[in-house]
């Protein structure tokens, strides 16, 4: 039948074209591989192996262990020295060893893009990195920020003498992280899945410390934040970190959190000025019996 012959001819044409096209895709071979007479055997191309998937498991396990320890030290032992030591560990491990990547702060972008449903695949380790600190915050407050986050740990370790930021400046600057969070989610969710736009990662001020390298503008940003952290307590955490904004929402409902024991407190109010992040409020009128 005419239709049958047309189909066969068309199929042959398509198959031939596909083969020709396929050779082009497989690499141009202008010079055929030689036949060696001397018995030389071309070596196997040696290449460094990829990252073992078990390392992802180790990453999540380390995060979980650090979060548990931070919660224990902050809430149950109330040990400042313990927190500082854990912060040192986090700087070394999550910071310098893992180069600060992938971190829960940057994972905002990954999760936003994955939820946007554009076909971006997100590893389970990244989902857990994002979710575990939130779960701990719901029960113990922002213990992730305390001593686990490498960005926060660096700021904690370089703080020499915290100055008190005036309340009105503090109140104004504290809004910025929420805007940054919104922008981070938007930029990530609306970006192309093959080359995502994670602004939190791109403009992370502390990652250049861990990598000991970076673009000039980011190194300047790092220097600015480091110098600010000498005198202001946790400038990035309080006034910029989008993940901190997210955790602060959940922390309001936390089951346990650092608190002043009311029976021992004599209302000297020294703690209000001592707190590096201005987290202690004036005593309530009700408490003054």
């Amino acid at each position: 039948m005419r239709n049958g012959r047309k189909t066969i001819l068309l199929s042959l044409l398509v198959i031939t074209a596909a083969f020709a096209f396929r050779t082009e895709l497989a690499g141009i071979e202008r010079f055929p591989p030689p036949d060696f007479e001397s018995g030389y055997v071309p070596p196997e191309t040696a290449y460094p192996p990829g990252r073992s998937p078990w390392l992802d498991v180790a990453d999540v396990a380390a995060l979980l262990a650090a979060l548990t320890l931070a919660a224990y030290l902050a809430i149950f032992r109330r040990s400042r020295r313990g927190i500082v030591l854990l912060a040192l560990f986090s700087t070394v491990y999550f910071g310098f060893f893992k180069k600060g990547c992938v971190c829960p702060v940057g994972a905002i972008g990954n999760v936003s893009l994955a939820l946007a449903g554009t076909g971006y695949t997100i590893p389970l380790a990244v989902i857990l990195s994002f979710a575990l600190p939130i779960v701990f915050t719901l029960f113990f407050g922002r213990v992730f920020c305390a001593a686990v986050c490498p960005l926060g740990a660096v700021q904690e370790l370089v703080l020499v003498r915290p100055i008190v930021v005036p309340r009105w400046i503090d109140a104004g600057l504290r809004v910025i992280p929420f805007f940054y969070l919104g922008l981070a989610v938007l930029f990530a969710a609306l970006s192309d899945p093959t080359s995502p736009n994670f602004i939190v990662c791109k403009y992370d001020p502390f990652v250049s410390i861990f990598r000991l390298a970076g673009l000039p503008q980011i190194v300047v940003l790092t220097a600015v934040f480091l110098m600010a952290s000498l005198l202001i307590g946790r400038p990035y955490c309080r006034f910029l970190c989008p993940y901190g904004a997210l955790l602060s929402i959940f922390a309001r409902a936390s089951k346990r959190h650092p608190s002043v024991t009311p029976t021992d407190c004599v209302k000297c109010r020294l703690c209000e000025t001592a707190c590096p992040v201005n987290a202690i409020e004036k005593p309530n009128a009700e408490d003054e019996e």
Partner: protein
Amino acid sequence: METEKNARPEMKRREFLGKITRTASLGIIAGASAVLVARSAGARTLWQIDPEKCAHCTNCSTQCVLAESAVKCMHRFDTCGYCKPCFGYFDLSGSADGTGAENQTCPNGALRRRFIEDPYYEYSVDDGLCVGCGKCVKGCRDFGNGSLMLQVSQDLCQHCNVCSIAVSCPADAFVRVTPDNPYPALKGMK
């Protein structure tokens, strides 16, 4: 005990609100995680270069966040032509003759040339010297078999969430690959 509860109604309300918020938050997180896992959880993906798209622009040697770029030139021996005048090894635009360094494309001498039998030479890359500039790759691709290619070396790469080289690549040649096959181009697969 009843009088205590009645005397502090705000505390009980706050605890109640806290419990509700915590339960709701956990539910949202669990739900969102389940959606993400079901919809898209994949293996951790790694950065890699697609040599078919690569424009040989030398950005790979300058844009990496590391001081020594994680991009290296890698050589597929099975597709190499073993040519005496290798277009990746020799810079044939120069006027000088011979096999000296002034005629080599590689600015660091990272491409090694070894005589096998007449007229075939084996070319290999010295990883310690290669900076990933792609000049040899350009020559090989434009005039030869395309057996030299720039690839992300997975032990040097820091696997940044946002690859600085990928952002600056003019040909958009950076792709994500799975850890079980981190060098698809070296095996002849796309």
